[in-house]
């Protein structure tokens, strides 16, 4: 018996190798098993502990949960397109990233375990894909993402258009009517009719008309025009003629006037100061272009300090100050009160400095200052009522028409924080904005180049506030004022905080799976998988008998390893993914079937078991390889060319095919080698083959 001789000759080392592989397989099985079923094992250990009362602390296993896709957990898959028509080609990709960041922040509020927010540029379309698995209220989520406000800052388009004839007529008609109205009202005021009643009837200022037109206590600082007008009125006086103001006509009544005092200590008068300053910034301050280190700046300002006198102060400012525009303004700050400047500045000017002197060196967040206090005076407060009759100007009409605004780079993307605040003058609700450092720079640029011109704040494509820029604004703070109720302003601030979008988005596709359906699908697939597994196992054992049992063992090994792999690589299991997994159970047997059929042939031809097994594997291998390669090719292509739902299928099937190939050539072979001796191989019933006569 040649075969016996050969197999005996090789047995010692070959046998040992088989055992080594067997042990290796067991080790992999145990490791995979503890990864795949960690939670169950832990439960088992706990149960044992409780049951036996043994208080030994067995080490627990890490519990990694399976990552379930939204079609199993319930959830929604949303595709948005971003409207990039107003963005330069070069900036579109980054704008899209901006949208993603904002939506991500938005989505994190929902408390979804692992929200997915992806960008996708396809053809000319810029898309955001949002997947929220396990979310309870999909409708609310969609609403909240969609509702996210779009905040834009726009400046006037220098290419101003002419008013159309129709628009001009509307404007003229309106203004003629206003003039008639104000003429009528002034006559009544002069005739001594009750001012409050007239205000209630005629004023176009919706905020004050019901209070008899009362503006409250104002100062020259906040309402320079009004204060300038009523300055010379006696208390109780009204305007004798209507005043032509920027957006209409005004008629005033001075109710009272007083020297402003500290709101907490009425004996203490409040003053305002006129001053100019010299600023040296240094490289620790963002946006500073002086090129000076902090030490250098300090040394230099000390040098300047020794030279400075009230007479040469303006010249020194023009020469040295790093404040933008200082060479023109001479650092002149005009009149300001205690609430205007940063604290060190205020403390110096108001509490520690005489009029006509130059201060010590003051350090603030902008750098080092020298301040020349030019004058100080009491603040006079006027209690004024007014009747306002609105007119419209060309600019109003054009301002309301967004086509004549052009986008600036500043958008809600750069917003750090928005909060509800109140206008100190009329207590109306406003929304204060704070920009991040980049946004602050942009805002400074925009205000710098639009001094004296309006800048519009657009919300969701509508202008909500069109303030005129008085001077360049540093520090990145802005206020949106409009006709807000407190609730409106609060809501707007909340929405802005949650994230403003740099470009508008539109939902183009939505796939939502209710939690119930997801749960049902999961249960059903698990059931189907188990039934499928049992059927396959039964078939294999009944048909192939002993090798069939090995195939089932290999299949279980395969099942445990693939589940562990899903956990390790955190593969998202979708419904189609589970289908792929179950399908791979069927396919996993394929390699075994190929090998067993070959083995039967080889054994039938009378070969000794060792040789038969080896030959069977060798011959079956090309078929296994070629067949599986074609499936893997398909999976790769499926993965590349399709979207998430089908991808799950491609991943699980692909992984399944690879792992099952490994199981067949490793586990099944090892078991066969281990168990099937020549003696067993002669048992035709156990191995389910018939001896052929020809060999």
């Amino acid at each position, binding site marked *: 018996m040649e075969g016996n001789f050969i197999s005996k000759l090789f047995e010692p080392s070959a046998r040992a190798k088989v055992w080594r592989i067997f042990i290796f397989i067991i080790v992999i099985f145990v490791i995979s098993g503890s990864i795949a079923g960690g939670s169950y094992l832990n439960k088992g250990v706990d149960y044992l502990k409780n049951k036996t009362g043994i208080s030994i602390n067995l080490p627990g296993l890490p519990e990694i949960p399976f990552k379930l896709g939204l079609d199993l957990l319930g959830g929604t898959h949303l595709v948005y397109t971003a409207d990039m028509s107003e963005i330069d080609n070069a900036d579109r990709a980054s704008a899209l990233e901006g949208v993603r960041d904002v939506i991500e922040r938005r989505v994190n509020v929902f408390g979804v375990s692992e929200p997915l927010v992806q960008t996708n540029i396809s053809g000319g379309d810029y898309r955001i894909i949002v997947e929220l698995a396990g979310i309870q209220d999909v409708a609310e989520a969609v609403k909240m993402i969609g509702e996210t406000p779009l905040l834009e800052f726009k400046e006037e388009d220098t290419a101003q258009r002419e008013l159309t004839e129709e628009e001009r007529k509307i404007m003229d008609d309106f203004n003629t009517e206003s003039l008639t109205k104000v003429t009528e009202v002034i006559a009544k005021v002069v005739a001594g009719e009750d001012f409050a009643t007239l205000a209630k009837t005629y004023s176009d200022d919706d905020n004050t008309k019901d209070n008899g037109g009362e503006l409250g206590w104002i100062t020259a600082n906040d309402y320079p025009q009004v204060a300038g007008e009523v300055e010379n009125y006696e208390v109780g006086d009204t305007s004798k003629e209507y005043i032509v103001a920027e957006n209409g006509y005004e008629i005033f009544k001075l109710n009272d006037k007083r020297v402003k005092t500290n709101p907490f200590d009425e004996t203490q008068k409040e003053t305002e100061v006129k001053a100019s300053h010299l600023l040296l910034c240094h490289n620790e301050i963002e946006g500073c272009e002086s090129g000076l280190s902090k030490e250098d700046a300090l040394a230099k300002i000390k040098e300047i300090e020794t030279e400075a006198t009230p007479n040469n102060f303006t010249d020194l400012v023009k020469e040295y100050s790093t404040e933008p525009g200082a060479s023109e303004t001479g650092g002149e700050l005009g009149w300001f009160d205690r609430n205007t400047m940063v604290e060190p500045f205020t403390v110096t000017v108001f509490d520690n400095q005489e009029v006509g002197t130059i201060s010590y060196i003051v350090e603030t967040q902008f750098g080092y200052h020298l301040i020349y206090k030019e004058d100080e005076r009491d603040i006079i407060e006027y209690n004024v009522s007014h009747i306002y009759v609105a007119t419209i100007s060309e600019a109003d009409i054009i301002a309301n028409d967004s086509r004549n605004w052009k986008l600036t780079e500043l958008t809600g993307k750069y917003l750090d924080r928005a909060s509800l605040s109140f206008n100190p003058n009329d207590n109306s609700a406003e929304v204060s904005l704070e920009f991040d450092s980049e946004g602050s720079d942009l805002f400074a640029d925009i205000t710098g180049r639009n001094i004296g011109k309006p800048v519009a704040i657009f919300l969701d494509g509508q202008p909500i506030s069109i303030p005129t820029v008085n001077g360049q604004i540093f520090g990145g703070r802005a206020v949106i004022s409009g006709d807000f109720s407190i609730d409106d302003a609060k809501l707007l601030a909340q929405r802005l905080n949650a994230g403003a979008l740099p470009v508008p988005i539109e939902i183009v*596709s939505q*796939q939502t*799976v209710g939690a119930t*359906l997801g749960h049902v699908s999961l249960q059903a697939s698990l059931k189907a998988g188990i039934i499928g597994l049992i059927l396959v196992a039964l078939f294999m054992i009944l048909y192939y008998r002993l090798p069939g049992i090995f195939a089932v063992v290999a299949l279980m090994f395969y099942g445990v390893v693939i589940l562990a792999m899903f956990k390790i690589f955190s593969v998202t299991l979708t419904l189609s993914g589970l*289908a792929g997994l179950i399908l791979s159970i069927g396919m996993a047997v394929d390699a075994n079937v190929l090998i067993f059929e070959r083995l039967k042939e080889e054994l039938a031809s009378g070969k000794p078991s060792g040789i038969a097994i080896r030959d069977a594997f060798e011959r079956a291998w090309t*078929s296994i390889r070629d067949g599986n390669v074609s499936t893997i090719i*398909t999976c790769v292509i499926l993965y590349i*060319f399709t979207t998430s739902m089908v991808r799950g299928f491609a991943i699980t099937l692909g992984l399944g095919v690879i792992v099952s190939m490994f199981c067949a050539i490793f586990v099944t072979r090892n078991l066969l080698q281990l168990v099937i001796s020549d003696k067993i191989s002669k048992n035709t019933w156990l191995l389910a083959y018939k001896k052929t006569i020809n060999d």
Partner: protein
Amino acid sequence: MYQIIQKRKIWLSISGFLVLASIIALGIWGLNFGIDFTGGSLLEVKFRDDRPSVVDVNTKLGDMDLGSLIVQPVDEQGMILRFQEIDEEKHQEVLTRLNELVSSEDDVVIETEIATSTDDMASSTDGIEILTTKVNDSYVEELRFDSVGPTIGAELKSKSVTAIVVVLVAIILYIAWAFRAVSKPVASWKYGLAAIVALFHDVMITLGVFSILGYLYEVEITTAFVAAILTVLGYSVNDTIVVFDRVRENLPKSSDDFEGTVNTSVNQTIKRSVNTSLTTLLVLLSILFFGGTSIRDFVLALSIGVFVGTYSSIFLASPVLVLWEKLGRK
């Protein structure tokens, strides 16, 4: 030994007939593309109690400008509504209206109950509101909602076509490479082409069946279906390769002619082919019957494809190969 190759006329006629029938079905009815490809919305809901009639739903939603609204009852209490692509606002409106449709009568009862049982009028009205909304919420449950814009649909269509073409090309290349050493008496690329003939046959028949199912039962072609077709491509070629592999192995040592060798090879592999597809079909059928409705069409496509793919690897690919060899000799 079965005389499979020898009786090839029978098999070729069966295959030819089935493919022809499929082509005719596709010609007449075409494919019933789902909203994945055409764009549109699909809403599946489950009613807690009685399901309203299709007519009621149609009238209730009639003035909402939903495009062509198709309402289809499913299972005991479910309903699938198909209409054009809509935004979130309209989506919610549809749900609200469905709620109204089934909840209106019961609400009256609840309202009166509360009104009589509570003394304080102010709190009773509040009570009604809270209660009715709660009741409303649970009348209709949204199982799933898909809404796909037309651009996405068109893009998906072209992507699917690309994927199929790429898979086909990759498979031909792979087979040609795998059989590169075989040249006598049939060139290696002919194996590839014979496998493609089998693939074409499998895909056409699967499409044909779905064309008929689409016509009769409104079964839709979705992206999942494309995935199924691609998987069938991979599977079918896998089967065919195993047979050809045996031919490749037997050819050098066979004393028989080409026809005889191929027949022997087919016989040697037939058990494997049948057993493998049997195990695969076992799991597929278990998903088909127990795996829930959502992937039923997908699994059905796979099952048909696997079945036909096994048939074609035995009864079509090899006979075609032999036929080709015969024609070549003439």
